[in-house]
């Protein structure tokens, strides 16, 4: 079974040379730490920066240079700053190749819910609805089940949607799953996790085609 860092490490393998990537808050943010050194990747943050680098050294924080999680950041050579309209031009115009974000629920048709739980305080969708409605390649990072042990990979989402039919891949603590025309398809098992455990934890239609390899991270 993977922990959060394991999920981030596995997703990092999906990042390819030449990709512009938008990382959501939480596990997705960790992905940046595990991308291979020998490929060229740039990270975009929807508040208006491309070419994000690591956190600043203590004492070098700048209130005017933050990411979408409001964290102080630095930039790398080749970086640029821009306004919110241009930022979403990059996203909506599909210039950003890959979006990695968390979710509360994903449905077998690729629907995603990650912004609102009725009856609870709703903080808002931020840029998530733009990202999922636009990106060609969307990978969800999440736990396979919620705290009550219920599957988060569903036949249909029960929560208000963030976007429809958009998720392409899901990496959880248990598995790597592709979203296909015929529902979820199991691609890889997490180390030490059996196919049976994954089936049990998945409510939506799950296709298992032949031997399912254990993932390497």
């Amino acid at each position, binding site marked *: 079974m993977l922990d959060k860092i394991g999920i981030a490490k596995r997703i990092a393998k999906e990042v390819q040379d030449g990709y512009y990537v938008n990382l959501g808050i939480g596990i997705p943010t960790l992905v940046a730490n595990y991308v291979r050194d020998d490929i060229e990747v740039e990270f975009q943050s929807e508040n208006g920066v491309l070419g994000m680098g690591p956190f600043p050294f203590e004492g070098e924080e700048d209130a005017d240079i933050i990411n979408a999680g409001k964290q102080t950041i630095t930039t790398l050579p080749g970086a640029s700053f821009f306004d919110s309209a241009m930022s979403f031009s990059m996203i909506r115009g599909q210039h950003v190749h890959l979006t990695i974000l968390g979710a509360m629920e994903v449905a077998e048709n690729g629907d995603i819910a990650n912004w609102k739980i009725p009856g609870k305080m709703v903080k808002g969708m931020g840029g998530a609805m*733009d990202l999922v409605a636009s990106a060609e390649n969307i990978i969800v990072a999440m736990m396979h089940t919620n705290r009550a042990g219920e599957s988060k990979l569903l036949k249909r989402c029960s929560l208000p949607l963030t*976007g429809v039919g958009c998720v392409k891949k899901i990496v959880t603590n248990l598995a790597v799953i592709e979203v296909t025309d015929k529902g979820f398809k199991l691609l890889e098992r997490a180390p030490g996790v059996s196919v049976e455990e994954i089936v049990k934890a998945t409510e939506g239609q799950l296709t298992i085609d032949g031997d399912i390899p254990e993932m390497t991270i």
Partner: protein
Amino acid sequence: MINKKVNSVKEATEGISDNMTFMLGGFGLSGIPENAIKALVDSNIKELTCISNNAGVDDFGLGLLLKKRQIKKMVSSYVGENDEFERQMLSGELDVELIPQGTLAERCRAAQAGFPAIFTPAGYGTEVAEGKEVREFDGKMYVLEHAFKADFAFVKAWKGDDAGNLIFKGTARNFNPVMCGAATITVAEVEELVPAGTLDPNQIHIPGIFVQRIFQGKDYEKRIEQRTVRVRE
């Protein structure tokens, strides 16, 4: 050169009144018009509608207006990090319209650029699209979203000149440029106000035509929400 310079935040906010709609730049606490917000708090005007990506924190930014219950409605994409906001929202005192961040930006830009409405894919199939026109283009679905209308836009820039030209710094740019010229009156406050002719005409982010009043801000706090650092090895 058409001179946009005013000498105080008081002069810059002349004409504000109850029930108005304001746009306010900033993302989180970065790039917010600190001086204008303080003036709005001091003015005691109320029943305001505020279009702003976020709603500040309890004791800073728009949180200061919320604390004094001057805001009737917030139009934002994300409103976390604010207990008083949560209390007013859950109690029904505060009306909140949540809209996708890119839609928020583009509805401002539409107002700036004279477009009545835009078609965006964001929110299609979600409750954001409820009651709105949707349309298919090339096999993809889009939602029709209208340009905002606002009385004042309050923005914060890094440098500005007497002609109203603005230059922003880093990610403090965010929503500030798209709000310029998107309201009847745009008020810009800057960290450094210089005479016209000082800034390179090639490097202006927002030409002065989109700004009605500009003033030299003061006492910028520029608070950091998430101070994340790494250790020097």
